């Protein structure tokens, strides 16, 4: 285990209990920072617009990402396509704080993810079950998030992914040690990662919720289900009052068990993003990369 990987996992630990917000301009990045984002995700189009536009979706213009890096003092993340290690090299070259190898963009490789152990810069990856999470960690991811269903404003998929992951962790925790070998085989992951989960009742890296979070209640729901923090994509800047909604989500993540505070925070937030029912969409981004 090299030092940089430890430092990268530790940066994710510093983001815990926080909200990471998608932004497309330096102005939005400043609003996100002022509203209490613990990091921003710089991208050209938010997932809802990517979904609406269709076509091929790629890494953002490095100049646009630099503009956002210069606008804020909090960590800046950016997305590259699954398997597109040259996009990742570019993001490392501009000293991004975290790369999201993301199913929101069009996959560049339908078989292989990036070998993230070859990079000094940290990676976060999406997962919809424990096997995916541990496979990404084995490839070098230092942070995991649920995939959810980005750009929908529908929380159902993120809830499903978090529950599936928590259930699998609970099952492994309760297994006899001689059963772990077969579990490693079943999930196609190395034995030592299964053993870590068995001994610690958690992933070896920080686990955030992402995909479909649109309200303070959604964020608190994911926290109560075991998320260590929340990504909010389209939910903020596609809503009526981004600043107020962003602030409210940040506070709801801090006090996620305080229903009376969340009730107050949920008042007068204006129009939420319209949203698409995850049952009604044709493109399930969560099915990209397994």
């Amino acid at each position, binding site marked *: 285990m090299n030092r940089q990987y430890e*430092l990268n996992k530790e940066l994710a*630990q*510093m983001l815990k209990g926080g909200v990471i917000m998608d932004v497309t301009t330096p102005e939005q990045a400043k609003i996100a920072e002022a509203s*209490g984002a*613990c990091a921003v995700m710089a991208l050209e189009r938010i997932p809802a617009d990517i979904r609406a536009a269709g076509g091929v979706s790629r890494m953002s213009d490095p100049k646009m990402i630099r503009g956002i890096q210069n606008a804020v003092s909090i960590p800046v993340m950016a997305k590259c396509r699954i398997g597109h290690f040259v996009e990742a090299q570019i993001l490392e070259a501009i000293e*991004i*704080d975290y790369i999201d190898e993301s199913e929101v963009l069009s996959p560049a490789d339908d078989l292989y993810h990036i070998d993230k152990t070859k990079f000094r810069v940290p990676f976060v990856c999406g997962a919809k079950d424990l096997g995916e999470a541990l496979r990404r960690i084995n490839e070098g991811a230092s942070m995991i998030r649920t995939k959810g269903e980005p750009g929908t404003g529908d929380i159902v998929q993120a809830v499903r992914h978090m529950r599936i992951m928590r259930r699998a962790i609970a099952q492994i925790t309760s297994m006899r040690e001689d059963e772990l070998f077969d579990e490693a085989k079943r999930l196609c992951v190395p034995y030592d990662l299964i053993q870590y989960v068995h001994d610690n009742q958690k992933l070896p890296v920080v686990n955030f919720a992402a995909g479909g979070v649109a309200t303070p209640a959604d964020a608190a729901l994911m926290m109560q289900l075991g998320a260590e923090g929340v990504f909010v994509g389209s939910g903020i800047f596609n809503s009526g009052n981004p600043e107020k909604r962003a602030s409210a989500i*940040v506070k709801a993540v801090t006090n996620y068990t305080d229903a009376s505070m969340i009730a107050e925070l949920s008042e007068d937030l204006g129009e939420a993003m319209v949203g698409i029912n995850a049952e009604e969409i044709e493109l399930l981004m969560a099915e990209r990369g397994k």
Partner: protein
Amino acid sequence: MRIAVLAVQGAFEEHEKVLWKLGAKTVQLRKAEDLKEKFDGLILPGGESTVQGKLLRELSMLPALREKITNGLPTLATCAGLILLAKHIADENTVHIGTLPVTVKRNAYGRQLGSFHYANGYFQGVGAFPMEFIRAPYVESISDGVETLAAVEGRIVGVQYKSQIAVAFHPELGGDSRIHEYFLRQI
């Protein structure tokens, strides 16, 4: 012994685990009414100082916290916690708690690729201590009465002023609890 850990955002659980190992009890501070609990010491953890500062303000925790620290509540601040405590932040007008008379520089080592492990650290009163720096600040200058407890390559990364101890690195991460023990001995 009961130690309050600011739990509005960041790596507060890591501090709690170290404290439990040392036999102390902990209480999380997430909102104003949590400050009414009784506690003997305070930890300000790592995380994002902009987020923590904003939440302290908007959750109406700042005045009470400032008063307790000014009145001598033993406090250990790490990384973002150091920024919260500092009286001045270089190149910014923001002040959060502002009870520690130093000037601190944020993101002083650059972005995540500038984060580093310093194996040869030395902490006054504790001895050799390996240090994790994550998008870390350092102390640019100190006022009279502030004692330097640690420096790395000429930069101050650990200070004490009366009952406040503040460090730019993360003693809660390395599995070495001696700085926490040093803090608990001051109570």
